[in-house]
């Protein structure tokens, strides 16, 4: 059995219509992988395992705030084959509904009623007639010279940044990156130049570049807009990365719900090939099959290899031992899309765009603001500045998540803190993937916490006990608290949260308790508790 045959498992199961009876056996025969293993892979991914519900309503926080429950109830009443799902990376167009592999934006109960019980006819009235829908982006394009991504600008099909990068040797390129101060935008904010250097220094010369476009952190949808509007930056950035670290094969892993961004990339790749922009570099598109955890880079590599998306133990890191054991440079879409501008305009230009950290950032903002969307602003703006760009608050600010569900909740008093990696880490939170969710004072925070905990419970890979058990334990504890179904329901949550942070293998489990612990710390009254003198969780 060749390893490449194994990599075909998810796609073959998709073509079987999911994990239908007999499908695993047929795919096992075609790939030479034992049938139980194929079944184990299929059962891991929601889009494959649940093949009976072509319609899925997002019940993430932003979507529920925008009426997802009503849409779901209407769909159920109409007899549609519908189920719930976790975040679809469309919090700006909430509530979002997945129809097969396409996301419908801002779906209203009336839209569901119009389908008259036929799921194939389900559509959103906001959907444009021509081409895919796009979200709101801003701010207005007054000074393109101050923009890295320039989402409203024209595409660049010249390949000139790549040409220029080919003229730099490895040391020059690494120095450029270091000067730029570019940090990974997938969540960790890790300095890019260190990763590039590590990959370049490996003895093994077969190396890969992987694009992480699995965008799944609740509240985050910037990669979607980048792929739809500026695939040119992404592909050219990947080519620059590949040429620098000596990779010939580039793997693009898009979440399975990204049918439109996929087409955008495909179109652009065909165009690039026609113009022979990046000869010698092979681009391979791979679709995820419904698993938030596959955004974690080592789980992503497992999924690319056709395995269950369970994160690997580190060390070794993917830059040392990655895809099929080879050194692999994994980057988020936004990180990669910074490269053409950095090459063109220089590291210092990029660094100076930011406030306390380098560059601009694509901030996603949703929840209680007037114009949810993606806003390119200097890294380190405050919440107030971001919300101003997004048209202002709706109602009175109560709390916000600065970087996706994993960043927990911060109180309104933090509205002037820079939204940057370092400044948010100091507040016990994180910038993560800059998915900002704003909650006003109509929100029951204990409910919001519960929703975030449920997300992690649904999306835990299940490999390690602290996360597999802890995510459920915390959610059940909050449920017991809210419904008064247990004595001292929150008595052990601090210990459980400590255990999850210390004992979990990957970032999911390590951060999953944060929505609860941060809320207990900043909003004890939401749980009927007295604030403690040091402001710590009881």
């Amino acid at each position, binding site marked *: 059995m060749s390893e490449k045959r194994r990599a075909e498992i998810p796609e073959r199961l998709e073509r079987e219509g999911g994990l239908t009876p007999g499908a695993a056996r047929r795919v096992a025969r075609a790939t030479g992988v034992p049938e139980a293993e194929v079944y184990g892979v299929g059962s891991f991914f929601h889009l494959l395992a649940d093949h009976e519900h072509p319609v899925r309503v997002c019940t993430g926080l932003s979507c529920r705030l925008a009426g997802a429950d009503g849409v779901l109830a209407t769909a159920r009443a109409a007899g549609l084959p519908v189920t719930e799902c976790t975040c679809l990376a469309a919090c700006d167009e909430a509530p979002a509904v997945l129809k097969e592999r396409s996301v419908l934006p801002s779906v209203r109960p009336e839209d569901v009623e119009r389908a008259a019980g036929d799921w194939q006819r389900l559509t959103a009235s906001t959907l444009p007639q021509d081409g895919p829908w796009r979200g709101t982006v801003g701010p207005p394009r007054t000074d393109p010279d101050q923009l890295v991504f320039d989402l409203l600008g024209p595409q660049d099909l010249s390949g000139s940044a790549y040409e220029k990068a080919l003229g730099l040797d490895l040391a020059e390129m690494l120095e450029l990156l270091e000067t730029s101060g570019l940090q990974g935008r997938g969540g960790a904010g890790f300095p890019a130049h260190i990763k590039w250097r590590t990959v370049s220094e490996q003895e093994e010369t077969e190396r890969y570049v992987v694009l992480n476009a699995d965008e799944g952190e609740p509240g985050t949808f910037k990669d979607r807009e980048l792929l739809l509007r500026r695939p040119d930056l992404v592909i050219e950035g990947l080519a620059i990365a590949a040429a620098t670290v000596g990779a010939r094969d580039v793997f693009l892993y898009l979440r399975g719900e990204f049918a439109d961004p996929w087409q955008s990339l495909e179109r652009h790749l065909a165009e690039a090939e026609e113009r022979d922009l990046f000869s010698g570099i092979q681009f391979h598109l791979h679709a995820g099959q419904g*698993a938030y955890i596959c955004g974690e880079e080592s789980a992503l590599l497992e999924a690319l290899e056709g395995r269950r998306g369970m994160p690997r133990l580190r060390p070794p890191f993917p830059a040392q031992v990655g895809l099929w054991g080879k050194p692999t440079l994994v980057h988020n879409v936004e990180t990669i899309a910074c490269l053409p501008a950095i090459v063109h305009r220089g590291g210092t230009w990029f660094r100076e765009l930011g406030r306390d950290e380098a560059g601009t950032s694509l901030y996603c903002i949703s929840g209680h603001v007037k114009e949810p969307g993606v806003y390119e602003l200097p890294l380190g703006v405050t919440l107030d500045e971001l919300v101003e760009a997004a048209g202002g608050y709706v109602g009175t600010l109560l709390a916000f998540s600065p970087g996706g569900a994993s960043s927990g909740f911060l109180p309104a008093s933090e509205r002037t803190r820079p939204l940057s990696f370092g400044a948010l880490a100091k507040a016990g939170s994180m910038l993560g993937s800059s998915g900002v969710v704003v909650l006003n004072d109509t929100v029951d925070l204990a409910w919001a916490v519960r929703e975030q905990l449920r997300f992690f419970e649904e999306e835990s890979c299940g490999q390690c006990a602290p996360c*597999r*058990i802890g*995510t*459920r334990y915390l959610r059940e504890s909050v449920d017991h608290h809210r419904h008064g179904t247990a004595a001292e329901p929150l008595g052990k949550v601090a*210990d459980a949260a400590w255990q999850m942070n210390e004992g979990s293998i990957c970032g999911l489990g390590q951060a999953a308790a944060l929505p609860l612990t941060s809320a207990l710390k900043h909003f004890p009254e939401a749980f009927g508790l007295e604030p403690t003198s040091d402001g710590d969780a009881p």
Partner: protein
Amino acid sequence: MSERNLITLNGQDVEFTAGETVLEVAARHGLEIPTLCHDPRLDPAGACRTCLVEIEGWRRMPPSCATKAMPGMVVSTESERIARHRETLLSLYLTDHTQDRTEAESYGPDQLFEMADRYGAEQDWGAMETVRAARPGDRNPYVHFHPESCIVCARCVRYCEEVEGVSAITLAGRGSKTTIATVDELSLLDTTCEMCGGCIDVCPTGAMAEKMPITRTARPERELEKVRSTCNYCGVGCQVDLNVDTAANDGAGRVVKVTSPPAGTTTNDGNLCVKGRFAYDFVEHPERIQVPLVRGADGELRAASWDEALERAAAGLLGVKERHGADSLGFISSSRCTMEENYLMQKLSRGVFGTNNIHQCAAT
């Protein structure tokens, strides 16, 4: 100049050989680190998280089973942080585990309860209902899966793949619903499973259990007497432990289960096949022949002593040789015999009776 392979282990400099894990080095020095998903025959998974240790300069506690010793490493296997880790982890495990220890132990030994006792983990964190799917319709006669006891360490799955090369079972689903499954939830009989029962042997909590003792409500394994024996189904000579319920059969005792000695202690390295592990019921069979039988003048079989029976057989064989010559005899030995027994058989054939007509049923 090569660096000496030394690490500091709980304050003491100790040597290691290249490639050794921290867990292995600690074990050689008599330090106990708890493990649940570890098995020396398998690639380390690092998934159960019980074996985390502290290493100076590492922000996170790594699993000692999967961390190779490196020169200069400063390792602690005991600290306040590690103690809190073990306690809270085990308490958390127990919320997702059957609360009924007696029931759990009717399936097999349960190391989770034992470990919780040993490390002083509180057992009052509350309990959650099991959401792992079982395989209720599985009609196989030997292997029972009890999801309430399962801690999803995947030892069974990894053993099936890495040692047996069978891959009949898999981790399936994800999150709290992650369970052990077969393809399409079929009965093990309809999969590639060879019924070696290794999954039962490697399970630390009795979630993979043997059906026969359960249906007979035998006593917990720790109350059984283990009698070391050699499996007599083939010539390999696997060591088995007959688990005897000494009170059964009015005190005469009864073999209620066969287990394999721990990996690394006997030649079979903890492994057995379907016959060695499960085919022990013949011991109690009413028609089992327990003494030699010879046929009397009346044509009926009657009990005899070994001396009498062997004499009778020798006389018969010699008679045939005298009347018809040595090559009218043929000797066939059983594949259940050991190599030494087969050697003696051919010696009997060639040396004593003078014929080369010797065969063994496993020869092709």
